[in-house]
């Protein structure tokens, strides 16, 4: 089954000058070390400076190391921490998708796979669910939009890719756009969800992905119908012209 996924997920374009990198976050840089440790404190303190301060104390550094995080970034250290969290969760999803033993590989349908990945990713929110709204509010600040959207696009791109998307037309964009939308909607749904194990969120994701699938089907059908009629009209005109 794993072979199937690796066959499905082969990228059509391959550059030899840029060897594929599966390192989304580098945990060896000072920022990486500090933020990785700070994530341990997020369930307790949230995405705040307190988490970073606790990490600094825990690692035995003096507070001067905080300048390494703040000095060259246009964004606040708190936002940096949120972004780092998102990236490390994306890395976790990547590792999960490549894990041969995951249930993921027994699913054949592209849309079901996408739904599975979204649910898996949403599951990573559980430990910090109390602080998720705080993270989202930082992500949508106007001066943070650009990076936040880029990260969201990277996530939906990863999901589409591991789900086995092979489209190479406008569907490529449409799928990613819709996956981003579904992810954000589901995350907001999750914030309000009090059901055990976030069952209702899971149902919501399944429903949304099914809607996306039927939308794709409807679009393809309409496209097919329109093409047929367009060609018919051209042929009709041609035949009328030939008759004189």
């Amino acid at each position, binding site marked *: 089954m794993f072979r199937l996924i690796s066959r499905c997920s082969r990228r059509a374009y391959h550059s030899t000058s840029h060897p594929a990198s599966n390192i989304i976050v580098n945990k060896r840089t000072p920022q990486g070390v500090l933020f990785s440790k700070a994530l341990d404190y997020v369930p307790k303190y949230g995405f705040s400076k307190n988490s970073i*301060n606790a990490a600094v104390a825990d690692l035995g550094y003096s*507070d001067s190391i905080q300048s390494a995080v703040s000095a*060259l970034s246009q964004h606040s250290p708190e936002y940096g921490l949120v972004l780092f969290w998102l990236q490390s969760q994306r890395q976790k999803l990547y590792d999960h998708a490549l894990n041969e033993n995951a249930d993921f590989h027994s699913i054949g349908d592209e849309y079901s796979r996408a739904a599975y990945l979204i649910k898996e990713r949403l599951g990573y929110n559980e430990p910090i669910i109390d602080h998720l709204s705080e993270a989202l509010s930082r992500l949508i600040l106007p001066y943070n939009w650009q990076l936040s959207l880029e990260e969201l696009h990277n996530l939906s791109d990863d999901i589409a890719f591991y789900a086995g998307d092979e489209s190479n037309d406008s569907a490529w964009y449409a799928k990613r756009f819709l996956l981003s939308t579904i992810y954000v909607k589901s995350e907001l749904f999750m914030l309000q969800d009090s059901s055990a194990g976030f069952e209702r969120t899971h149902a919501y994701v399944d429903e949304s992905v099914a809607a996306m699938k039927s939308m794709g089907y409807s679009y393809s059908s309409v496209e097919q119908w329109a093409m047929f009629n367009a060609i018919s009209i051209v042929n009709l005109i041609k035949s009328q012209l030939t008759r004189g």
Partner: protein
Amino acid sequence: MLSRTLLRMGRQRPAAMLPSFARSYASSSNKKDDTTHFGYRTVNTEDKEKLVRGVFSLVASNYDVMNDAMSFGVHRLWKHHFINRLDAGMRPGALKPLDFLDVAGGTGDIAFGLLDHASKNFGDVSSTMTVADINPDMLAEGKVRYEASKWNDGSNRVTFLEQNGETMDAIPDASKDVYTIAFGIRNFTNIQAGLNTAYRVLRPGGVFACLEFSHVDNPVVDYAYQAYSFGLLPLMGQLIANDRDSYQYLVESIRRFPKQDDFSSMIKKAGFYVPEPGYENLTFGVASIHIGVKL
């Protein structure tokens, strides 16, 4: 700290001290081992320190005015931004206070700014500050300001030290947490030696932060900037401070300073880890902030 640099324009004019050195546009700063650059001139290495000392020996209030006039007050914004970016200070509940070292910080504006930031944002009133400068006149000016400031509260957190930034004899290894230098490193005879010394005096986890004039990337802006700095600055120096040569030295030394990427490489060469993207340009790159972390 355009102010800092400009404030030091000297009583002794460099040109007068250098009758035998013709201006040279040599591409290498060290054609022979014993020469270096002083602006666009090539001078003996041992002379440069004296020359810089000479240039920066007089402090006068009209240089503050000059400073604002020449940079349109932007140097104040740069300093403020630099201090905010560093965001240094002991956080509440931290294990130990920080030891700051401000090099070439004679008048103490960066030093007091850092202490101010730390106390306002983190309630840090125990970190120490060492202000080092090669020039005793500048240090004396800093002390006068210190005595009138709120930092002169009997806690002796601020000390002034006459030191050559390239050697720092009086500062032990691994004894500081934050090393700042604003508009000073350009005047070092051997910049790499200064960076190596910064690495030496910092503790692991310590941060090197440098604010310095740099190079404008955008060719159009650069054209205007060069026209302004070479055409107008020495003239303004002549008119306002009656000292053309020192201002000529100022613009030439800015032009001679390594480009952002080159300076970043020098910081790495000294042993520092440089976080991405390596530096931050201010005002199109007229000045830039460089950071290095000792791991």
